[in-house]
């Protein structure tokens, strides 16, 4: 049982690339922490540093209180599940799972007992004598997990274990992994680029970008109170809508954007000290698709908290309807904030920007009763507390 702590950890490659910058993070014993972020953000590097497969350029990594920077990977008490599973092709499933025990020179009987137990736990009993190449993707994944579990290590490390599985299998395995971790209770660091996976699996989530840790907290907190525009946009599907506007104060706070003035409600102005410096200046306003509703359906909402435009696409989900619409008079975002907004909205499967130019087009997740149709006008009502403001230069959330 161990906690893992990072103290100003850095990783710089010989060519000067900074893969990880000043990471300070505390992972408590028994927790499942997800490191999530777009590719290249340094999450896998962090994982590999814990495993000992990468050197630490600066700072300390501690496992159970001991600094492990210089400890050989074979001596750290961590187990890792690789993205490609890294199963030994020349060994059977049973031998793969039992390999760490064999190296540790456990008595034969004990080795066999543990392997059988793990196999039973993962539903692999029938495969023990087969070779990895004879197994399906899901089975291989489980063998990889089995090899990690059988050692009863202090820390589990998982490097995108589900990314090579198809969607339905991924869904199933997500739950199994979360379950397993709960039962076994081993501190786990889990890396993924899929924010849905991160939110559903983890006790706590660490969002990273370009080597930096942007926010660390439990999933709900990250969703409700993102500290950064990138985090806000990264988490949640479809991604948060962003629009540029100006903060004004005329009896009450309001934002003016796209030709209208929308008042901010009490929840959105909880911290006037943070808001005041921005009066009269531009801000980026974000509101999640699920906090929008077709005004025709939610007719009880205040008339001034509306934003409207022309529908470009309507996607029926069954439980909801995704309505894409363009707002006239909206301006695209600019500079670094725009780059962050685009990067955060990359579709994890297609690895392409999933939505159009941020700031111009919006998505609302409406009640299926909405009659919004392509090429027609729609008015979206903004639910209370939906708007979050961000600094247009740094992307930092205003009011946190």
């Amino acid at each position, binding site marked *: 049982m161990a906690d893992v702590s990072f103290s100003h950890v850095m990783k710089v490659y010989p060519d000067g690339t900074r893969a990880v910058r000043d990471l300070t993070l505390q992972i408590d014993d028994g927790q499942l922490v997800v490191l999530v972020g777009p590719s290249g953000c340094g999450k896998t590097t962090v994982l590999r540093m814990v495993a000992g497969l990468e050197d630490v350029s600066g700072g300390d990594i501690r496992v159970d209180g001991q600094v492990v920077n210089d*400890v*050989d990977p*074979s*001596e*750290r*008490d*961590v187990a890792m599940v690789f993205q490609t599973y890294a199963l030994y092709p020349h060994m059977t499933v049973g031998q793969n799972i039992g390999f*760490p*025990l064999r190296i*540790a*020179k*456990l008595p034969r009987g004990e080795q066999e007992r543990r392997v059988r*137990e793990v196999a039973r*736990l993962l539903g692999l009993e029938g495969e023990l004598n087969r070779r990895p190449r004879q197994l399906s993707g899901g089975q291989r994944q489980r063998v990889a997990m089995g090899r990690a*579990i059988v*050692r*009863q*290590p*202090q820390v589990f490390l998982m490097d995108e274990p589900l990314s090579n599985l198809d969607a339905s299998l991924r869904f199933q395995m997500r739950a199994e992994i979360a379950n397993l971790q709960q*039962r*076994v209770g081993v501190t786990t660091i889990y890396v993924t680029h899929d924010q849905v996976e991160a939110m559903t699996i983890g006790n706590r989530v660490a969002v990273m970008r370009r080597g930096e840790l942007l926010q660390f907290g439990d999933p709900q907190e990250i969703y409700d109170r993102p500290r950064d525009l990138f985090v806000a946009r990264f988490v949640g599907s479809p991604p948060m809508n962003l629009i540029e506007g100006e903060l004004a104060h005329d009896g009450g706070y309001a934002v003016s954007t796209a030709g209208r003035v929308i008042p901010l409600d009490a929840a959105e102005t909880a911290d006037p000290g943070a808001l005041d410096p921005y009066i009269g200046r531009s801000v980026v306003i974000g509101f999640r698709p699920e906090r929008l509703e077709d005004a025709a359906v939610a007719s009880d909402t205040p008339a001034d908290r509306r934003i409207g435009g022309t529908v470009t696409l309507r996607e029926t989900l069954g439980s909801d309807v995704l309505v894409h619409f363009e707002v006239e008079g909206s301006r695209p975002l600019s500079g670094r904030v725009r780059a962050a907004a685009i990067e955060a909205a990359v579709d994890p499967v297609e690895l392409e920007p999933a939505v159009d130019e941020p700031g111009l087009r919006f998505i609302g997740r409406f009640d299926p009763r909405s009659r919004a149709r392509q090429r027609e006008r729609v008015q979206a009502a903004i639910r209370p507390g939906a708007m979050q403001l961000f600094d247009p230069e740094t992307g930092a959330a205003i009011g946190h």
Partner: protein
Amino acid sequence: MATGDAVVGGRVHARGVRLGRRGYSWVTLAPVLTLVALFTLFPVAYAAWTSVHRHVLVLQGRPFVGLRNYQNAIEDPLFADSIKSSLIFVAVSVPVVTLAGLLVALLLNQRVRGFGILLVLVLLPWSIPTVSAGITWRLLLHGDFGAIDGFLYRIGAIDSYIQWLSDPTLAMASVIGVHAWREFPLPAILFLAGLQTIPPELSEAARLDRASAWERFRYVTLPLLKGPLLIVLVYETIVALSVFDLVYVLTGGGPGSATTLFSWFTYTATFKYLNFGQGAALSFIMATVLVVFIAVYMRVVRLREEPS
């Protein structure tokens, strides 16, 4: 999952000697490096040392003689002769070997049935001991009872048996020929590998563009073989400069000094007269020349490194 079990994993059991990354690397390399250094660095250094002393086995004393050994060696008429012979040998045999290898590779690249067997056969001349090949060909080229002469005579190509190994020019040609017979499999294999990496679409496209076979070869195949070609040329040159076994069994350096290649000359100078000082001088000269070629070879291979 059973809890409270003993902790498995690195911490519990002792590991052997803790070496650290650098220590480990050098320890595993030590035997190899020592062995290689002993048999390359040391000998070359020793050869350099010996070459500036008088070291004749039957004489006492090893006085320092400066560059006298080198002087004697260079002034020996055989020295110039052997260099000339070696140069001729290299100048002729390298292209011959390369061309033979290329032709065979081109042939093997055609998908004709039964060529699988040919692929197997191609390795044979290269795999047997050079002396065995040399002696065999000496029998075949025998001036009185050789099968080659017999065959040529039988089909009327010649009207008297040719003394392959007694005529100076023919002897050199024979050595080159046997050397080619033995060496061609290597370039053949390399070229074949190179040819097989050329996507067939390229020559198909050329064919559609109405290119003749020769044009296809010249504009599509050949440019893509430049890499292996360069490597083969440099490598075979190094090999050609080192030829010894063949000379020993085929001609003994003769007739006269017609096939006294430089390595043969070094050998006789050293062991026939037991003048190790002079032999060392010659060895050192040879080593130096070859180091140049080796360096070139290294450069070529590094430049041609395929992106992985």
